[in-house]
């Protein structure tokens, strides 16, 4: 076997860990591994992320709105973890743990996530650029709101590939497990 370089060793270790974790978690939440339940989790996650955008925008006008992030983060963590478990973490799986169909689907979903991230992050960037040259704007509140908006954007774009894959994945065919 040829000597592996650092990157190959890292990929091999990551793949081993992923497959170990996948095997360990394959029996978790068995009743939630249907398309309908995965879609329900996806919708809940989308609503939570939408609320994060609203809350972070509201902080510019009402600083106390930032407190809404506490319950939202709690719901987010539970929903996101559940979605990752029931969709087998396909969106962030190492390449060697997937076959060609899964890689193709994952790459398409990631491409959409990247595109969405670029668009969403442009909003706080433009707000900061324009706001910094406008005297009537409270610069401190603007910076805080823009920071929160960027955080929500990165979260949304990071979750989007998993949400797309969870949404499109069909129910398991009983014949697959014979």
């Amino acid at each position, binding site marked *: 076997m040829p000597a592996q370089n650092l990157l190959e060793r890292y990929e091999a270790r990551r793949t081993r860990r992923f497959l170990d974790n996948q095997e360990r978690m394959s029996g978790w939440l068995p009743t939630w591994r249907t398309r309908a339940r995965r879609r329900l989790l996806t919708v809940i996650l989308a609503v939570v992320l939408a609320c994060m955008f609203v809350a972070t925008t509201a902080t510019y006008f009402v600083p106390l709105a930032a407190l809404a992030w506490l319950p939202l983060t709690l719901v987010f963590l539970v929903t996101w973890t559940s979605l990752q478990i029931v969709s087998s973490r396909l969106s962030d799986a190492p390449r060697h743990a997937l076959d*060609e*169909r*899964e890689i*193709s689907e994952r790459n*398409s979903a990631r491409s959409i996530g990247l595109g969405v991230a670029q668009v969403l992050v442009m909003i706080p960037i433009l707000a900061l650029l324009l706001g910094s040259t406008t005297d009537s704007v409270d610069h401190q509140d603007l910076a805080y709101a823009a920071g929160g908006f960027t955080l929500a954007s990165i979260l949304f774009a990071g979750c989007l590939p998993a949400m797309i894959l969870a949404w499109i994945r069909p129910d398991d065919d009983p*014949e*697959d*497990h014979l």
Partner: protein
Amino acid sequence: MSPVRRGETLPIYNRIRVLRADRGLSRSQLAALVEVNPQTIGALERGDHYPSLDLAFRICDVFGLPVEAVFSRTEFAPLSAGLHRPAPKEA
């Protein structure tokens, strides 16, 4: 489905389900032999995914058949249609 850079996506039909049944292989067994997930075999059988050349060759190796016997641009006739042909009538 395999990505196509440009042009119309042409169909690729296959006989995987029939050959698998003929050899008594389950999806899981065939998937293990060609090193993909069983869901991908299902997607191939349904026509939801077109295989790469590498996967196509690996599947053909399992059945011991040439690519054109397993995959085709046109729909396959039932295998049973080739089992018996009536003798030509004598003049």
